[in-house]
């Protein structure tokens, strides 16, 4: 089975974001694989090991720098990668179309994994658009997965610990949530091996993506800082507790 994993190259969550121009950020900060996508890769590799004759291919949109993210996916066990070369960030409508075109030109997907969301844009929709493009069913925030013949059973966490158990036919798109598995740090031999794995580069412009007149575009980016002036609540523990209760009652008006 051909197993595809869509991964995104995102700014390190700890990085300081500096806005550049009107609507973009200074990209000279470290970028790495989106954390949820690590769960997607881990599950794909686990699945591959349980199946005969299958291959895990990681797919990403970006510039040469995104090779780092694909290299991480391959260190975690993906067999090879596809990098769709595009200079600027694309919205999820175009991203999904590009991913579909690249995957289709590469092979016949048996299953496609993605992360549940990307930590930079948190669009929460690319996986559904990929599903629609292929005509495959989609399950979101998957925290448990099993496969039997041509059917998969997943647990999809909705909110507050509520889990929906779904059955989907193959091929399908599954968005990995935390809890699905525990990604492991690659070992040194895995890192060395990943260096020799192939990254196939495809120019975005050769994919023939037609713009459909629907789009999302960031027109402005502003820093978000909520000014807070920390005030210490002092006194004996009991006095502090009483003061805190007073704040909750009088200022926050929640009790």
């Amino acid at each position, binding site marked *: 089975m051909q197993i595809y994993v869509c991964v995104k190259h995102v700014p390190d969550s700890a990085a300081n974001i500096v806005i550049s121009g009107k609507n973009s950020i200074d990209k000279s900060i470290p970028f790495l694989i989106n*954390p949820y996508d690590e769960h997607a890769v881990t599950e794909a590799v686990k699945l591959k090991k349980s199946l005969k004759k299958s291959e895990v291919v990681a797919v990403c949109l970006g510039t040469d720098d995104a090779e780092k993210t694909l290299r991480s996916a391959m260190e975690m066990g993906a067999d090879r990668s596809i990098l769709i070369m595009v200079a600027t960030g694309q919205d999820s409508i175009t991203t999904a179309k590009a991913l579909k075109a690249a995957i289709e030109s590469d092979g016949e997907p048996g299953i496609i994994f993605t992360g549940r969301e990307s*930590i930079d844009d948190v669009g929460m929709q690319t996986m559904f658009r990929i599903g629609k493009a292929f005509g495959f069913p989609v399950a979101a925030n998957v925290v448990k997965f099993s496969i039997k013949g041509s059917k998969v059973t997943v647990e999809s966490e909705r909110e507050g610990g*509520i889990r929906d158990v*779904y059955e989907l036919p193959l091929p399908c798109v599954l968005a990995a949530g935390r809890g699905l598995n525990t990604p492991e740090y690659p070992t040194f031999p895995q890192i060395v091996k990943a260096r020799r794995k192939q990254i196939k580069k495809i120019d975005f412009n050769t994919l023939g993506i037609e713009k459909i*007149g629907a789009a999302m575009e960031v*027109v402005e980016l502003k820093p978000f800082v909520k000014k807070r002036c*920390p005030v*210490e609540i002092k006194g004996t523990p009991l006095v502090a507790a009483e003061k805190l209760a007073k704040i*909750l009652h009088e200022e926050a008006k929640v*009790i």
Partner: protein
Amino acid sequence: MEKTGIFIEIANGRIKNANYGMITAARGSNSELYAFVINFKAEKIKKKLYAHGIDKIIEIRAENDFEMAWNPVSWSKAVMEAMNAFDIHILLALTTGIGKELLPRIAAELDAPLVMDCIGIDFDKKTAETFRYSGKTIATVKLTGMDLLFGIKPNIIDAVPVNTDSVTAVAMSSDSIDSTTREIDALPETKDISALTKPEIIPFTIKTDFLKTTGQFKNIKLNKTVMPETSSSDNFSNVNLMDADIIISGGRGMKNRENFKILSDCAKQLGAAVGASRAAVDSGWVPYSMQVGQTGEKVSPKVYIACGIAGSIQHFAGMKTSNMIIAVNIDLDASIIALCDYYIVMDLFEIVPLLTKVISEINHT
């Protein structure tokens, strides 16, 4: 007149409070507001929706039994059918567990732009504001397309009722129709006649075989839904993180699972939800569904009380939109101290039980 559809989220038979902020946001469209409800007798919430500016309520229901079983594909399809039937091209829903299932499915089907977690919408400019880069920036996103979809971040947009004069009048009218809505005793005279009939409730029946008749929608089958057990030892509060006005969270400073009972007791008195840092989740003390942060829930309660949490950038990504942040930490140099509104430099094991005691005394007087 243009129309805007608003998917009203109902939880445990009640309308979620966050819906009202969403309706307030939708009013900016200066269009006719259509509320969509599924599996719910709208008569019960009619007056409240009218008070917030809803013009019509579309009661989506299944053909034979009233109830349409939860399935994200069929529910999405039902909302799309309603949009189609009433010629609606703008849709709002909350960015919650259900909204995250429905909105992107509809967006994908319609090839329509969608912005999730909106904190503001400008309908004239067709832009929405949302956080980007883990809450470090606010992006203004322009949507282009035939249909525009918005996921609203819960509890950020303040609810501002409009038709307040007519609330009592509507209460009067619905009283005569449905005795279950009798909430207001006094029935003052009213001049607003329209309030007696508004908002109109329009039943919208979904054919049971509609999924089969459409080849587009790829179905997924729901085997069952597993609810978190309220009696389980993993249940630290009956209040949902996303709906809570107050959240009290514990981090590595809690030291073990049993100690979370201290927060649980305090939460009970406060009516709060209990959250956790990733350190506490990764240590296996509490379930992942309690995690707040970049890779957990992104919450915006009125008050967030962080106990034994250092305040990492990733934790902040999930709670920095809280109205008031209170930190309890033994370390004055913890990053959270510089980023909060109030802090107590004290052992949480000393202060939290005292807070519980003080609140419980207030509750009992």
